[in-house]
């Protein structure tokens, strides 16, 4: 119980730091970067629901992100700002609908086939956006007006955008936290742990998985919506499989099976990328930032098999002098 409280306090502190950050730093670069990272953290959380919580390794998450982003731009008018109240649900809904369609087909496959089918569907979406007039081709499309909510929420302001992204991140985290504790969430955990037993016990697992897939698509769509609004611009690269891969790396790096792992992973991944891209530190070599980032990720995964969220446990057992590091901890059981 104390462990649980410690984690909750840690998470609350983390969100408080994010809340205070604009006044700690205040630079426009930093605010833009952290806004971006928080959006990716929502995206990573959406994938964590599938991979970490349900055991479904989806390799097409970028399609939901991109569809949410494109929907935000395409549904916005050219003659005045749209209301967030309908544009946000509509964008997330578009991604959810697509996820429902993809899920209903891909969930009939298992394991490696599931990975390949979700990737194939995402590539299809990529080429549709890339090669049809709808998506504006390689150049992408601009968002004429950022959506608003009355007069007090105008997302043109970077600080407002920052706070709104933080609000969405906390909301997503809280929503998933509640969802995973519910009977629905426990059923997903059971499916991940032993689907055969779930079937034998009386759970028709397919609708559970489809619901998780659709919710995940909606959350990825929310992240895409935020991304489009922040940048005021979308292009097909938002649906690129690189982004699906990056999200997978984020949640693995952070620690599968933990919501806070997805957020930790998103921050670690993006900040590492920022670090290795820095010309001030690496000069010419900054062009090869992939190399440094890749190496660190390999090392992290090799030495922290349960991700960054497992770091405190590893350190604790080192300090205790046992010298024995639990290489693969059993996932946390619910009570």
């Amino acid at each position, binding site marked *: 119980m104390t462990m649980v409280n410690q984690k909750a306090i840690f998470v609350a502190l983390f969100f408080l730091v994010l809340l205070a950050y604009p006044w700690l730093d205040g630079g426009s670069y930093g605010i833009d970067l952290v806004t971006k990272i928080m959006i990716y953290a929502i995206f990573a959380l959406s994938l964590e629901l599938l991979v970490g919580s349900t055991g479904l390794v989806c390799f097409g998450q970028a399609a939901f992100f991109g569809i949410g982003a494109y929907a935000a731009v395409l549904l916005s008018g050219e003659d005045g700002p749209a209301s967030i109240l309908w544009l946000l649900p509509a964008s997330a809904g578009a991604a959810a609908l697509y996820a429902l369609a993809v899920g209903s087909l891909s969930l009939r496959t298992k394991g490696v086939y599931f990975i390949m089918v979700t990737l194939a569907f995402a590539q299809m979406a990529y080429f549709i956006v890339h090669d049809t007039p709808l998506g504006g081709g390689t150049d992408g499309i601009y968002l004429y007006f950022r959506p608003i909510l009355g007069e007090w929420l105008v997302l043109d302001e970077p600080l407002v955008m920052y706070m709104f992204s933080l609000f969405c991140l906390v909301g997503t985290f809280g929503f998933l936290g509640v969802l995973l504790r519910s009977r629905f969430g426990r059923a997903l955990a059971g499916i991940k742990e*032993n689907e055969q037993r779930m079937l034998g016990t009386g759970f028709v697992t397919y609708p559970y998985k489809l619901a998780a897939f659709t919710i995940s698509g909606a959350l990825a769509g929310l992240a895409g919506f935020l991304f489009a609004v922040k940048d005021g611009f979308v292009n097909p690269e938002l649906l690129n499989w690189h982004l699906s891969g990056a999200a997978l790396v984020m949640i693995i790096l952070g620690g599968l099976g933990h919501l806070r792992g997805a957020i930790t992973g998103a921050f670690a991944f993006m900040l590492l990328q920022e670090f290795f891209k820095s010309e001030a530190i690496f000069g010419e070599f900054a062009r090869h930032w992939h190399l440094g980032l890749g190496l660190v990720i390999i090392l992290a995964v090799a030495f922290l098999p349960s991700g960054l969220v497992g770091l405190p446990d590893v350190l604790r057992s080192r300090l205790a002098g046992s010298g024995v590091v639990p290489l693969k901890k*059993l996932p946390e059981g619910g009570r």
Partner: protein
Amino acid sequence: MSNEILLRGQGITRRWGGLVAVNRVSIELSRNCLHAVIGTNGAGKSTLINLLSGEIPLSEGTVELLGNDVTTWSQPRRAMAGLGRSYQRNTIFPGFTVFENCRLAAQAKAQKGWNLWQPANRCPVSTHAAREAAHRAGLDKVLDRTAGLLSHGQKRQLEIAMCLATGPRVLLLDEPLAGMGAEETGRMLTLLDELRPDHAILLVEHDMDAVFRVADRITVMVNGTVIASGNPDEIRNSGEVREAYLGEGH
């Protein structure tokens, strides 16, 4: 109390290519009757349980559960209708606590997947049934233990507890005693005795002493076919069974 028939399989056959794993087996399970199925390794006992529970489809034959023809029903649907099974190889949720293993199993009867706001561990139906089932299977003292870290015997007990947690009327138990110590075996046989009055039980078991102690009926399978079926005395005295199965060793 009449001993109505709760599960009836007729002419059940399962083929894999040329191999006939289960060959025109008919079996009836009644309430207040423990029906043991014995046979050598590969006789088709586990396959029979898989067929009755709906884990794999039948090649031929019909299955009737509580008076309904369930031949085309999916496994979860049969489970919801009151059919519980345990597995020969442990099929638990190793990462969950013992309690959560039982609670999740019990949740099948109160799924409410749309109820996203109530924490699962506040669901009174499943928590109550889980405690009850764990208690019956003798797992009271290890409720908070991670299931994957239990002893072998305790895992076998958990198999049964998870099965009971769903409140089944028919129990198909695949070698529940395998690998258990004498004390654990004794406790499990007592549990079977307790369950007998309101359940129809099919027990697949290799431990002949146990089988002859608790079974009301025994069916003997060899190479997918039933060669004998009767009460323990009839089976003990059947020359055919001695020759085919009980052999010289007994």
